[in-house]
Structure formats: C-alpha cells, structure tokens
C-alpha cells in the first residue's frame, strides 16, 4: 500500500486526491458486506444468549454460613422438605427453619462437630443464623408457595433436585418468561399433592397426559397471565 503512494503524499493536497485503493482491495468488498450483515446478528445473539437470565441468574450457588448438605438430609436420610420448610403449605414463603429445628437432632447427633459451631452458637445466644437467600425474585413479584404446592406443583419444578445438591444452587432462571412458560401450559408440571415433595418422582413418566389433564380439572387450575396475578 505504502509503495503505491507518491513521494509527495504528505506535502500536497493534489497528491492525496490521487490516492487510489490498490486493486486487491476489490476482493475484500464481498467480505465487508458479509461482515456488515452478520455483525448486528452476532451482537443480538450475544446479548440474547449472554444477558439471558439463564446465563446470569441460574447457577447462583452462594456459600452458606453453615455447610449444610441437602444431599445428606433430604437425599440420604430421606427427610421430607416440610420437616424444615414447614410453612410452605400455609404461607407464601417456605420458611428457613429456626435453629431449634436443627437442634431437634443435633443436640445428640454430631453434637461436637466443628461444622455445627455456628448452629450451637445461635442456639445458645438466640441470634439467627444468617443463611444466604438463593432463590430471589424481583421485589415486585409476589410468588405464593402455598398456592402452588397445594395444587400439585412439585418443589422440583422450580428448585431442581435439591436432594442431590451438597450446596444448593439456582437451577431455574426465575425470569418472568420462565414463570409464564408454565402459566401458559401447566399440564406437564402437575402431580398429585401426595408427591409434591418427592423430588425423584416424574409425572411425565408416572402419569399419562390424560391423567395430568384430569388433575388440572380436579384442582381447577386456570393460571392467570394478568399482570396483577403476580405484581401488586
């Protein structure tokens, strides 16, 4: 390129006007067009894929103050979710249990374990253990646990296989689009109330679609897509 410029290139404006792109740049032109067309697409895909709640929100696995293992308690020991989260059937929230609930067993089992030091301290002082919230919704969304678990939406639909998690992490993106997926087509997410806390149970294997449709009728489920259903 430099070779093709006249020596007087920097000195006279006339020389500039005589600058010509070398002939080989013609070959680039089609590429420029292709790049021009693909670049916006790439940018859109990047934002849609990279900024999606499935990328940014799902997979959040905060470290908890006490290394509590759901895999041990809910998995190996087969404890029901409601043993600890016992407000879930009456209240909008599934309460994190009081320290007393831990101490039902841990006054005796592993009672000197260093991992339980904070639990014992909480039990003695009455100060709560500051567990870190994993599943946080926008503050304008009013999700009601009781409304869902009492009508056959299993814990596993939103929380995943918590009984296999050493540390709990967010499986679902918890985005509005994700909520609406089920509000628009709930049939596949319904199960008998007796199986709600059974995380290993899969209604798509254990029931036919007709049975699930029947469940929807029995529970009288007509999920609402109005803004005010969740936003108040």
């Amino acid at each position, binding site marked *: 390129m430099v070779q093709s410029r006249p020596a007087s290139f920097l000195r006279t404006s006339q020389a500039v006007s005589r600058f010509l792109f070398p002939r080989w740049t013609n070959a680039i032109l089609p590429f420029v067009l292709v790049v021009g067309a693909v670049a916006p697409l790439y940018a859109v895909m990047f934002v849609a894929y990279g900024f999606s709640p499935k990328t940014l929100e799902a997979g959040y696995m905060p470290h908890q103050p006490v290394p509590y293992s759901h895999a041990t308690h809910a998995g190996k*020991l087969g404890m029901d979710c409601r043993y600890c989260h016992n407000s879930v059937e009456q209240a909008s929230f599934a309460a994190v249990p009081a320290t007393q609930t831990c101490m039902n067993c841990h006054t005796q089992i592993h009672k000197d374990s260093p991992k339980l030091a904070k639990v014992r301290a909480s039990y003695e002082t009455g100060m709560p253990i500051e567990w870190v919230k994993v599943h946080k919704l926008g503050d304008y969304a009013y999700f009601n646990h009781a409304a869902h678990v009492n009508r056959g939406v299993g814990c596993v639909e939103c929380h995943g296989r918590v009984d296999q998690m050493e540390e709990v992490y967010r499986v679902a993106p918890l985005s509005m689009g994700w909520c609406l997926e089920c509000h628009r087509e709930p049939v596949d997410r319904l199960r008998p109330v007796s199986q709600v806390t059974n995380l290993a149970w899969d209604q798509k294997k254990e029931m036919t679609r007709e049975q699930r449709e029947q469940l929807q009728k029995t529970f009288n489920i007509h999920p609402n897509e109005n803004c005010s259903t969740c936003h108040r």
Partner: protein
Amino acid sequence: MPRIFIYVGLIALLCLLIPPAVIARVRATPNPNLPIHIIQDMDFQSKFKTQAVNPLFADRRTIRPPVQNAVARGETYVDGLLYEGVTDGAWTQTLPPQVPLTVATLKRGQERFNIYCSVCHGETGNGDGLVNKRAMELVANTNGPVNGTVWVTAKNLVHDETVTVQPVGQIFSSITHGIRNMAGYGSQIPVEDRWAIAAYVKTLQRSQNARPSDVPAGTTLAEAK
C-alpha cells in the same frame, strides 16, 4: 493481498468464538458470586421481606420475635384438653372436640407422621427410621462415636409396651413437649396436626398388632385383600 490481512482476519473470526464459549461455560457452572444484574428495574426495593436481614435491630431480624409474655389472638392455651391433652387431671382417652376422629384426620396424621416422625420412628412406627439408623452407625463407629454423637435408639412406638399402653393424650403431650431425648414439636407442628399424628400413632399400634381374630368372621384372605 498482503498475507497479514488474511491472518488478522482469520484470528478476528476465531476471537468471535470466545464470547459464546465463555457464555456456555458460565451457563454450565454454578457460581458463588452474586449474579450480575444488568437491568435493575425495581428488583431491589427498600423494603423488608419475610426473613430478610434488618440492620436496624441488634439481632438483624426483620420478623420480630413477640415481646415476652405477649399473647397472640387465639393463642391463649387455656383449653387444657386441646393444648395439653389433659381432662379431669388425667390423660384424655379421646380426641378433643376440635379434632374429629375421621378418616380424613387419620390420613392427615399419616402424612404428618411420615414428615416429622418417620425420620426416626420409621413409617410403621417400629423405630427403624433412617436418621435413627444413621445415628446408630455414628455411635457404633470403631474409633468411638463421631463428633461426640450420643444416641438412644428411637422408641418402637407400636411394640414397646411403655408406649402402647399410653392414652392418646399422653402421646400428644410427648409430641408437643418432647420426652427424654426427643425434642418437642409444639412449635413446629400446629396443634390440630399433633392430634392427628397422635391418633395415627394409635392407629399404627392397632394395625401393627393385628391378630387373626381381627379378621371379620367368614372373610377369606383373598377377600381381605
């Protein structure tokens, strides 16, 4: 065309693959850091939700514990039969009037028993719950009990005569206040559910000690099934 342009172009193309690869990796791996929240909307409002941290109080609780000696509406606990299982100074043999003895009550009791009690006492009440088994393993460890575990085997509720002779009111009381090494479940289980569980324990004791004479006369085994 100078070669350098071709190389730079190819490298730039390859670089375009990096962001998708990074995103795919982020999607596949759990991350302990707070999610990057690009569009804030009104997701984080200056209000306190259930069980959130409130820095204004010394214990940082948003939900305030009731003031000492405060009595909530409906929680007077003056009904000795309902809240203590005692009538005329003795354990009640029947359920309080607030909890009717129906199949629905027993089903409820079964469900609650399987949630709260079966972890130690087992689903049939014979004391073979998984937590009980695990605790026995920890105690029987060859190098001594793990982390100072002490454990007395969970009671066999259906065969141990010290339990089977108990009136339903006494079983209710044990559930509510705990007994020996068992913690009380009064704060964890609503009072009606505790009665339902007590009634179900009596049902289990009956069913686990069934005799041939319990089969109605003239019924064959095939019919009974």
